Each structure stands twice: as structure tokens, then as C-alpha cells.
């Protein structure tokens, strides 16, 4: 698994900037699964597949739980501790004084906002039911029908916030590409990026730790699907 990272060696890189690992496989998988499932959730609920919508939401919940744990024990760039920072770092970044791999301090703000809004979206969805009372999130039975209806309204409202953040996310990627000539999408696919950073390389996580995180996330997801006993059915 660990491989020799190419150092800054012009001869080896044919004049190209060196490639470094920046995103591990779990980070990339979670990213693209989230993107796909959010699109699928939107499509399915508007096309008479509310049952699929609910399963998609439960899967997103599981991914979020996994990512939360991977943010503690995962690779160095996956860890919250490595990219959650205060305003001072953001200012440093904006002044061009920040160097590193992984999320920039400004990008990290966007990631944290996205993560929170998706978590709120999924959390609301668990307690929501549809207008006709034909479909309900796995925890809707824990609240009254009126509360569940109101939660659905917030679920719909919060989706607009999520759409706004996704729009900002995509706009920022386009901005970096068009204005700074920086490709951000390819590294999220290949895991590698051309970076000038000469500091310590990305430290990968353990594959078995990823499996343990996944197992715990799936177990919690299953518990929620079962209605969160003993609180629900």
C-alpha cells in the first residue's frame, strides 16, 4: 500500500510538476457517492419513487457517519483536525501565505458547511412523511403527524440551501480552473494532484480502520432503519 512518493526531481518528471497523493480512496468514494445519491434523491422524489428516495437518504446517512469517523482515524488529508481551522488561517490563505495539501482553509469552510447541511437534510428526512401519508422516514413514528409534516417543509426548504452550497462548490471549482488554471476535479478522481508543496506527504489511513468505520456506520444505519429501538418500533 505505501509507495515511494516522487520527490521534486525534474529528471523523473519530464519537466512536469510532481504528482502527490492528496485524497485517499474512501474520501473520493464518499465524495462521488454523495454527489450521485443527492442527485438521485432529488430525481426519485420528483418521479414517484419516494421509497427509493428514502433508501437513498439512509445510504447518505451511512456515508456521513462513515466520513465522520474517517475524519478522525483516516488519512491525514481526510482528518478534520488537518483542515478545520480558524479565521486566521483563512486570512493567511487569502494573502497567499498558506501552503499545504488537502483542503485549503477557505475550501474547508465550504466542506464543513456542505457536511452540516447534508447532515441536517438527512436528519430532517428521517422524521418526515409525504403529504399523503404513504411514505415516511424511518423515524417519523417518533413524532406526531403534524410535526412530521412541518419537518417535511423544513426538509424541502433546507434542500434549497444545499443546492446553493453545491452551486458555490461547483462555481469555486470552475473559478480555480479558469482563473488560476488549477484542476481540482481530476485529483478527486485519481487521488493525485500536481502540487508544489514540499512538506510532509499525505499519510494514508489503514484499510482495516476504513472497514471498521464502515461496519459501525452500517450498523447505526440499520438501527435507524429499524426505527431506532427501543425508542421506536
Amino acid at each position, binding site marked *: 500500500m505505501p509507495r515511494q512518493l516522487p520527490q521534486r526531481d525534474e529528471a523523473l518528471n519530464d519537466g512536469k510538476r510532481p504528482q502527490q497523493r492528496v485524497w485517499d480512496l474512501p474520501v473520493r468514494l464518499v465524495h462521488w457517492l454523495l454527489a450521485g445519491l443527492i442527485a438521485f434523491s432529488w430525481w426519485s422524489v420528483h418521479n*414517484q419513487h419516494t421509497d427509493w428516495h428514502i433508501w437513498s437518504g439512509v445510504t447518505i446517512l451511512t456515508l456521513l457517519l462513515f466520513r465522520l469517523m474517517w475524519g478522525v482515524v483516516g488519512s491525514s488529508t481526510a482528518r478534520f483536525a488537518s483542515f478545520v481551522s480558524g479565521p486566521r488561517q483563512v486570512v493567511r490563505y487569502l494573502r497567499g501565505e498558506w501552503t499545504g495539501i488537502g483542503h485549503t482553509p477557505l475550501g474547508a469552510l465550504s466542506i464543513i458547511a456542505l457536511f452540516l447541511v447534508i447532515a441536517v437534510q438527512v436528519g430532517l428526512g428521517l422524521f418526515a*412523511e409525504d*403529504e*399523503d*401519508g*404513504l411514505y415516511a422516514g424511518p423515524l417519523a*413514528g417518533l413524532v406526531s403527524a403534524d410535526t412530521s409534516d412541518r419537518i417535511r417543509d423544513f426538509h424541502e426548504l433546507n434542500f434549497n440551501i444545499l443546492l446553493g452550497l453545491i452551486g458555490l462548490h461547483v462555481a469555486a471549482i470552475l473559478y480555480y480552473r479558469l482563473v488560476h488554471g488549477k484542476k481540482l476535479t481530476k485529483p478527486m478522481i485519481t487521488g493525485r494532484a500536481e502540487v508544489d508543496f514540499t512538506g510532509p506527504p499525505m499519510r494514508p489511513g489503514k484499510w482495516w480502520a476504513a472497514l471498521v468505520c464502515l461496519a459501525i456506520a452500517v450498523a447505526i444505519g440499520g438501527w435507524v432503519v429499524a426505527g431506532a429501538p427501543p425508542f421506536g418500533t
Partner: protein
Amino acid sequence: MRIVNLSASAGLALLLACGGPQASQANNSQTNIGNGASPPATAAASAIAAAARPLTAAQALKIMHDRHEGMEDIGKNNKVLRRELTAAAPDLTAVRAAAAAIAKHSSEASAWFPAGTGPEVGKTGAKPEIWQKPQDFASKLHNFQVAAQAFNAAARGGDVAAIKARYSDLGGTCKACHDSYRSEMKH
């Protein structure tokens, strides 16, 4: 639920095979009656197609209002039912009241969809397809009415397993119709 939906649509396919699904729009008020579709569906289909005299705007809006209120009340009762029937110990008194309310509305529903009460008249969740495929819609409506009565009858008894089974059937008939004929409507 899937299985319920499948069997409902299989039954529907049989009905349609008898009735000839794609009759021309102009003729479907009367000429289809003799074509051999099952009597209740055909009778309902004639109620869904154009009335002898077009509705006045006030009449149409009144029907649409009643329809909306009725559907909303069915939804409310359905939410009570889903909660009770997924709980460990269902409150059968609440279940019976909700089942009776839905059965009552299901009978009223025969008069809810005359031609001229679609989205061209006012705000409604009823899709124009209702009046483009009156036979299919009528048979789905009929399935709902039968299922609502059967559920109401089961609810009066004390067999919770039977009540749940009839409730599941009922939900299948709601979905079968809403999937094709209900649009999202904000109010």
C-alpha cells in the same frame, strides 16, 4: 407494497384488455360502455368523461374544493393509520374512526372528477391524464373504493393482522393512482 402494486396493475391490465384503452377522445363518454369493461369501472368512467351539460365555473370550483378537502382528510386519516398500525399496540378506536372516514370519502370520490375540473380550471393536483385515460383512471379509482370498504370492514373486527393486510392493500391503490394521476401541488 411492491407485490400489492404488481397485482393491482395486473388486474388493471385485464380490465384494459377488455375495454380497449385507447378509445378516441371524442367518443369515450358513451360509446365505451358496451365494450365489455367491468360494469363499475365503466359507470365511473362515464362520470369522469364529459357531462351532458358543461359545468359552470362555480360548480367546477366547488367540486375541486370538495375534492381537495376530501383528499386532504384522507391523507390526515392515513397518517393516523400508518402511525397506529406500525406501533406495537395499535389503538383500534382511532383505527376504526380513520377507516370509516376514508371509506366515506372513497364513496364521495365518484363525484370528484367530472370533466372540466382539471388544472385548466384552477389550482389542483389532478393531472390532465385523468380525462385522457378515463377508463384507466376509473378502474384505479374503483380499486381504491373497493379497498377502502374492505379495510373499513376489517377495521371493525379485532384481527390486527387482517387489518394490516387490508391497510397495505389500500395503500397500494392510493399509490397506483397517485403515481400516474397526481401532480405535486403546493398550497
